[in-house]
C-alpha cells in the first residue's frame, strides 16, 4: 500500500520534471535561434564599422524584426521558462539596440560615442541572452540530476519497504500460527471446549473453524473411548476378582481338607487355629467384595459446599494414630482463603485416607508426609497435594497405578484403593495425578473444580 503510493508519487514527480525539462528545452531552442540572430546582428554591426556600408544597418534592422517576431511567437514559452521579468528585459535590451541602430541610420556621423553606444547595446543584448541561455541549460541539467537522484532514492525506498512489509506479513502469519498452536495445545491436553471464535474471515479464520469442528469430533470420540475403557477395565476387573478371590478360597479349601483329613490327630489348639485362619480368610473375601462394590457402583456423590482445609483437618484425626505408630512426621501446608468447593466429604475423606495409607506403607522405615492445599493452575480449581518421602513407584508401574487390582504391595492390598479414588475424583469432575521417583518419594495431586455443582 505504502509502496504503491511511493511509486505513484515518484511517477508524478518524474512527469513534472520531464515537463520542466521540456519547457527549458523549448526555451533553449528559441534562445539558440535568437542567439544566432544576435550573433549575425553583431557581425553585421562589425561589418558596418569596418566598411561603413549603410546596407548592413538595414540588414541589422531586418534581423531585429525577425528576432522581435520570434520573441513574440515564443512569448508564452519564454515566460514559462524564465519568467515575465526576463522577457521584458530581453525586449527592452532589443528595443535599446533597435533604437541605437535607428539613431546610427538617421545620423551616420560615425562619431566614436555613438559607435561605442551601439556596440555596448549589442553586447548587452547578446550577453543577457547568452547568460540566460547558459543558466537555463544549467538549471535543466540540475533538474535531470535531481530526477535521477529521486529515482534512485525511490528505488531504495521501495526496496526497503518491500522487505519491511514482507517481514511484517510473515511476522503476522507466524504470530497467528503461534496463537493457533497454543489453542490446539489445550485440545491435545484433552480440553475439547471450542477454541477462540474466529474473528477474521481470512485463511486463519477458516483454519480455526476447522479445528473447532475437529475438536467437537474428538470430544465425541473421547466419550466412546471412555466407554471402551470402562469395558476394558471390566475385563481387568473380572480377571482381578478371580485372582483375588481364588487365593483366599484356596487357603480355606486347603485348611478344610487338612482339618477333615487329620481331625483325629490334631490337637484342640490346632483345630481352633485352623478355624481362626478360615475365619480370617473369609474376612479377606468380604473386604474384596466390599471394595468391589465401591468400585462397580460408585455411590452417588452427595455434593455440599465445604472448606477443603477443614475436610483435611477432620481426615487427619482419622489417620493420626496410624501416622504416630509408623514413625512419620506430618507437615501441613494449607493455603488460607481458598474458595469453598462442592464435594462429598465422606468420599473425599476416603480418597485422602487411601492416599495417606499408601504413603505410610511406602515409608515403612518412617519418613515425612506433606499434605497441602493451594489454588489450582486452572484458576477455577483448587489443588490438594499428598507427598511422601517413601520408596517411590517404578516408572514402568506408574501408568497402571489407577487400574483396578493393580497393586505393588503384594499381600497388603487389593489394588482397588487408587482405582476407587480415581473414580471418586472423576465423579467430582476433578483430576488426580501422580509423580514419583524411586527412592525419593511419591506425590499425588488432586485438582477439584470450584464450580462443580
Amino acid at each position, binding site marked *: 500500500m505504502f509502496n504503491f503510493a511511493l511509486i505513484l508519487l515518484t511517477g508524478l514527480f518524474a512527469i513534472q520534471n520531464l515537463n520542466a525539462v521540456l519547457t527549458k528545452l523549448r526555451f533553449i531552442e528559441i534562445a539558440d535561434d535568437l542567439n544566432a540572430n544576435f550573433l549575425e546582428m553583431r557581425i553585421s554591426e562589425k561589418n558596418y564599422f569596418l566598411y561603413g556600408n549603410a546596407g548592413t544597418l538595414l540588414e541589422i534592422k531586418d534581423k531585429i524584426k525577425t528576432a522581435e517576431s520570434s520573441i513574440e511567437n515564443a512569448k508564452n514559452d519564454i515566460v514559462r521558462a524564465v519568467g515575465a521579468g526576463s522577457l521584458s528585459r530581453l525586449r527592452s535590451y532589443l528595443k535599446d539596440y533597435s533604437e541605437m541602430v535607428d539613431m546610427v541610420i538617421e545620423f551616420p556621423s560615425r562619431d566614436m560615442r555613438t559607435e561605442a553606444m551601439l556596440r555596448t547595446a549589442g553586447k548587452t543584448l547578446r550577453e543577457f541572452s547568452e547568460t540566460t541561455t547558459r543558466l537555463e541549460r544549467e538549471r535543466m541539467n540540475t533538474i535531470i540530476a535531481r530526477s535521477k537522484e529521486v529515482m534512485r532514492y525511490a528505488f531504495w525506498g521501495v526496496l526497503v519497504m518491500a522487505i519491511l512489509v514482507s517481514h511484517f506479513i510473515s511476522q503476522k502469519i507466524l504470530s497467528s500460527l503461534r496463537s493457533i498452536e497454543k489453542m490446539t495445545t489445550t485440545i491435545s491436553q484433552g480440553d475439547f471446549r471450542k477454541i477462540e471464535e474466529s474473528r477474521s474471515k481470512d485463511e486463519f479464520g477458516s483454519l480455526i473453524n476447522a479445528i473447532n469442528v475437529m475438536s467437537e469430533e474428538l470430544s465425541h470420540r473421547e466419550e466412546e473411548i471412555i466407554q471402551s475403557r470402562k469395558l476394558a477395565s471390566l475385563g481387568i476387573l473380572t*480377571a482381578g476378582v*478371580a*485372582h483375588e478371590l*481364588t*487365593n483366599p*478360597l*484356596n*487357603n480355606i*479349601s*486347603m*485348611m478344610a*481338607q*487338612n482339618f477333615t*483329613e*487329620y481331625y483325629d*490327630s490334631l490337637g484342640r489348639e490346632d483345630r481352633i487355629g485352623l478355624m481362626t*485362619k478360615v475365619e480370617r*480368610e473369609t474376612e479377606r473375601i468380604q473386604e474384596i467384595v466390599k471394595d468391589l462394590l465401591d468400585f462397580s457402583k460408585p455411590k452417588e456423590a452427595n455434593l455440599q459446599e465445604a472448606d477443603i482445609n477443614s475436610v483435611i483437618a477432620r481426615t487427619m484425626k482419622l489417620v493420626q494414630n496410624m501416622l504416630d505408630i509408623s514413625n512419620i512426621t506430618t507437615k501441613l501446608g494449607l493455603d488460607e482463603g481458598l474458595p469453598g468447593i462442592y464435594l462429598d466429604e465422606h468420599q473425599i475423606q476416603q480418597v485422602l485416607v487411601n492416599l495417606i495409607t499408601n504413603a505410610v506403607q511406602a515409608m515403612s522405615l518412617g519418613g515425612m508426609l506433606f499434605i497441602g492445599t493451594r489454588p489450582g493452575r486452572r484458576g477455577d480449581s483448587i489443588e490438594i497435594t499428598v507427598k511422601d518421602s517413601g520408596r517411590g513407584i517404578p516408572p514402568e508401574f506408574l501408568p497402571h497405578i489407577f487400574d483396578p487390582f493393580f497393586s505393588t504391595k*503384594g*499381600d497388603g492390598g487389593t489394588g482397588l484403593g487408587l482405582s476407587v479414588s480415581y473414580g471418586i475424583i472423576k465423579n467430582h469432575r476433578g483430576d488426580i495425578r501422580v509423580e514419583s521417583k524411586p527412592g525419593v518419594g511419591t506425590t499425588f495431586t488432586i485438582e477439584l473444580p470450584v464450580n462443580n455443582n
Partner: protein
Amino acid sequence: MDRYRVMIIDDEKIVGDMAKMSLEREGYLVETFLNGEPALARLKEERFDVVVTDLKMKGVDGMEVLRTVKELYPDTKVIMITAFANLDTAIEALRGDVHDFFPKPVKIRELKVSIERALGSR
C-alpha cells in the same frame, strides 16, 4: 534311607503351611518359602527332589524358578500351582518341562499323588 526333600514356594503362607502339614505326615522333608529369591538361594545350597511353586509371584516368578531348578538339577521335578488358571499359562508352563500343573484351589491328595509319581518316574 534318606527322606525325599520337597520345597514349596507360594506367596500365600497358608499354602506352604498346609502342604507341609500334609507332606510331613507322609515322611517328606519339607521347606517352605514365601517368594522366589530366598528359595533359589536355598536351592543353590542344597538339592531338592521336588519343587512345588506358585506361577505368579512378585519378583522371581514360577517360570524363573523352573528355569533355575532345571539348570541346577535337571532331575528335580517341578510342580506348578496358580490362582490364575487360564489355558495359555498352563500351556506355557507345560512347555517348560513342568511335571504337573495345579490350578487353585489345590486338592492336597492329588498333589501328593503327583509328587509320588514324580519321584517314581525318576
